[in-house]
């Protein structure tokens, strides 16, 4: 499903370009649950943004489900994110002054018009146990509740790939565990999940753990990962 080949991303720093990720190659099969771990500043978020088609590589190739993402224009990337990818963020990122239900509806607004949108919103809100809070504004919800709404928003358009950036980072341990259980359920239902975390406990929920250090994949960490049922990482030569 995900094929990153020798992907490098550099940003314009102050005077000199800064390399956020360097020559990363990574394959993720459909139905996998992959955790990307690494210290802060290791390039995890940049990698995740490229995987989520929020950003494009400076060099290298990214093929998502067979199509070359690097060659797509902005509108096509928007469509791809809308139809194919769901996002969950550390800071929940619900739209303020917008009810839980309206937040969940948002991806449907930008997709192809279809029937049964209301029923679908109810369905996913029920799935994350937030139907009773549908009319609440984000400000009135606890962190765990906000993250549940965010997950409902991420899956409302039936994406194939769920991308989560430190989804438990702003939650207490118990709530975090509940959210991770939810990710586990979604994965069992067939979603491909790629998740960034620096919490080893969270990473244990994943089928495979990939370690990123200084913008490069760390093979030793990968070797130390728990046994995987899916394809092994295609490791870039170092």
């Amino acid at each position, binding site marked *: 499903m995900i094929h990153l080949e020798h992907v490098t991303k550099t940003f314009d720093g102050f005077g000199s370009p800064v390399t956020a990720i360097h020559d990363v190659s990574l394959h993720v099969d459909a139905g996998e649950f992959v955790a990307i771990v690494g210290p802060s500043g290791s390039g995890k*978020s940049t990698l995740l*943004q490229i995987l*989520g088609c*929020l*950003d494009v590589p400076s060099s290298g190739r990214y093929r998502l489900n067979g199509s070359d993402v690097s060659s797509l224009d*902005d*509108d096509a990337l*928007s*469509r791809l*994110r*809308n*139809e194919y990818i769901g*996002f969950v*963020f550390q*800071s929940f*990122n*619900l*739209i*303020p*002054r*917008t009810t839980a239900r*309206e937040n969940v509806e*948002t*991806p449907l*607004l*930008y*997709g192809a018009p279809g029937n049964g949108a209301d029923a679908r919103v109810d369905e996913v809100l029920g799935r994350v146990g937030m139907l009773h809070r549908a009319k609440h504004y984000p400000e009135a919800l606890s962190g765990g509740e906000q993250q549940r709404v965010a997950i409902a*928003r991420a899956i409302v*358009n039936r994406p194939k790939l769920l991308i989560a950036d430190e989804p438990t980072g702003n939650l207490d341990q118990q709530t975090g565990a509940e959210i991770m259980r939810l990710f586990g359920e979604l994965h069992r239902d067939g979603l491909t999940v790629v998740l960034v975390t620096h919490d080893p406990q969270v990473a244990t929920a994943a089928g495979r753990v990939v370690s990123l250090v200084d913008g490069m994949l760390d093979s030793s960490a990968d070797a130390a990962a728990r046994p995987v049922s899916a394809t092994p990482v295609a490791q870039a030569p170092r």
Partner: protein
Amino acid sequence: MTRGSWSLALRTIRRAKLRSSLMGLGIALGVLAIVLTVATGEGARRAVQRSFKAMVGSLDVLFVQPGGRAQRGMATMESAVATLVPEDAEALRAIPNVADVGMQQSAQNTPIEAGGKSGTTFLFGTSPNWRAIRGDSVAAGRYFGADDDQALARVIVVGADVARDFFGGSAAVGQTMRVNGVEFEVIGVLAANGAGPGGASMDNLAYIPIGTSSRRLFNRNYLSLMSVKLRDAAQSATTQQAVERVLRERHSIAATALPDFRVSSPGAMIARVANVDTTLRKALLWVGVLALVIGGAMIANLMFAATSSRRREIAIRRAVGATRADILRQIWFEAVLVALVAAIVGEVIGLAAIALGARMMGFSLAPSWPVAGAAIAASVAIGMVAGFLPARRAAALHPSVALRES
């Protein structure tokens, strides 16, 4: 997605009421100023028109008075130069745009007696078609007809004031009235006209057939006024030239010589008098236009501020699939909607103030619907201009950059 953009824009406006109100304030005030300024001007214009109509009756006419420029004011049988005769009126009927020609002899301060009272009135001897040309209506009885005119009948139609002053509340029709010592029968009472331009009543008058007035009262057949009814008032100017040409020919006056008559158009007179665009009103109008422009700048400014405080929202929308065009539309529509709603608010307040002023203070105010529409259209246009740049900046925001900020 266009419909979605409208509803998103509307939702944002509703949920950020303070910001939206501040944004629309300039537009609302501008529209209010424009609506009020135009309404006062329009009200004054209509007041002038009303009083003129009370004096001249119908406006789609031309008046022909005897005497050239030497004749000042309204000609009466005491002052009129003896140049206009009934044959002139007949000749004017041949002009294509002329529907009818009315003839009149008049005398101010004509002594009248009735019911034991005596006084004076403005007496008119007219052709039977005069009432129809003027557009007067008869409140009681009837106006005289051609047979009365030919028979030199001693019949009289009195104005509302005369009926009230001489006959009180009882019916005037059928009563006797002496005019210049001659006995007349009152056959009709005219409906009240109200006040003329000078504020004087237009109802202290009386009409008798012109045949009767020329033979029994004045012993002269020349006219103090002709009223030329037009088929198409829009061709008033060319018909006026035709009337002048016909009369010059009949009176054997060379095209270069001064005429012995004068043709005037009440429509043109009103246009001159009703030109009430005072300096103050012009200034007010410009204040309104200026307020609209400043209102546009306010919208642009606040939209810029709002979009930078909404970077995260925009980035989230982009992340879940909004295209640049979606974001552009949403933000742009917000500006347009704020301007539209503000314009409507200004309009409603203005119209309410007009209605209130008209009722409570007796102001002469009249709303102008074309101006109201134009003010709203201008506001929407200003909203479109003001919102475009902020919307474009919002649309250009890169989601990965804004999502990285925390």
